[in-house]
């Protein structure tokens, strides 16, 4: 199929989609309006569980089954990437000699920012139920903190800091902890993924019941999962070489 036929096909499809899109948008409630039925229900339900961050409450309490699916997608994709990017028969892994150095300013910033990013990431995970943030956002920040070491110029240091198999286990542990918290919901509150801990007072650290625990489980899973993902891509670029070739 040449470019022209393809564009014509796309153009006609796009016009049809555009027409249907405009029709469907016209029957939506007007933009920025006052009517949000689900908002009212979700806010009431989240406040009855004293979770100040309603988005976290939706994710880890009201619609936690959704998030279980979501983090299963994450787990599956990490496993998929690991399977796709493992060294092939004609390849081998070789740690290259350290060569080239990052600029001193880059290295300094890397080393200074690493603990700061790590601390902010942990903070975002732990306060995910009372301030903006949560397990997903904080987990990504923790993974980024580790990789600042690579940006600061030392792949070997990064390689020592993050043994990939330990992080792989960490990701599985996070996913399992999420499922276990769901099962605790059955045991203590009578429903899968129900909020089974007494919820405390709105806006303090120990509030929201099980939501902070879910945040921590997801934070561990995302931090480990992202690290493993990036490790696979970095290995492709740096350590995996064809047999008989020097890196």
């Amino acid at each position, binding site marked *: 199929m040449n*470019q022209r036929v*393809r*564009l014509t096909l*796309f153009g006609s499809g*796009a016009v049809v*989609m*555009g027409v249907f*899109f*405009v029709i469907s*948008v*016209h029957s*939506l409630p*007007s*933009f*920025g*309006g*006052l009517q*949000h039925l*689900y*908002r009212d229900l*979700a*806010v009431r339900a*989240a*406040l009855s569980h004293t979770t*100040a*961050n*309603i*988005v976290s*409450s*939706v*994710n880890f309490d009201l*619609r936690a089954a*959704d*998030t279980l699916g*979501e*983090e299963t*997608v*994450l787990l599956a*994709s*990490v496993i*998929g*990437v690991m399977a*796709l*990017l493992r060294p*092939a028969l004609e390849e081998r892994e070789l740690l290259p000699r350290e060569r080239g150095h990052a600029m001193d300013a880059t290295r300094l910033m890397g080393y200074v920012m690493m603990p700061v990013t790590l601390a902010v990431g942990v903070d975002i995970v732990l306060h995910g139920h*009372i*301030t*903006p943030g*949560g397990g*997903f956002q904080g987990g990504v920040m923790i993974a980024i903190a580790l990789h600042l070491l690579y940006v600061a110029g030392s792949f070997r240091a990064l390689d020592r800091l993050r043994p990939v198999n330990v992080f792989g286990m960490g990701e599985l542990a996070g996913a399992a902890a999420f499922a276990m918290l769901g099962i605790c919901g059955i045991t203590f509150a009578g429903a899968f993924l129900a909020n089974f801990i007494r919820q405390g007072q*709105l*806006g303090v650290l120990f509030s929201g019941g099980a939501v902070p625990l879910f945040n921590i489980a997801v934070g561990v899973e995302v931090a480990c999962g992202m690290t493993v*993902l990036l490790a*696979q*891509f970095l290995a*492709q670029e740096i350590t995996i070489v064809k047999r008989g070739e020097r890196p």
Partner: protein
Amino acid sequence: MTMYAYGVAGWLVLIGAYGIVVSRNLVHAVICLSVCQSGSYVMLLAVGFQRGASAPIFDSSNPPLAPVVDPVVQAMSLTDIVVSATVTALLLALVIQIHKRHGTVDPDELSALRG
């Protein structure tokens, strides 16, 4: 003007799809898919928006009776973003494998079946 945000969402989906159609490089096509998916974030957030309302996070400056935007669609866009990131990673891994096996990432040159 009130339809503006919805228009942006639809336009992002179409321009992303257009990018995939004319793509000469699979990495480019994967990024276009992400653009396509960003349309769904804009759509979700636009549906939940309310003029003058604040973020759905309550504290002393934003007491529980204040009007807030819809948290359900925000949670959905978070799910959407996570899924988009993981799908992008998986597709990029596939692109790496395709490049190793076929020596090209131009979809037009990938017509031969092998294996």
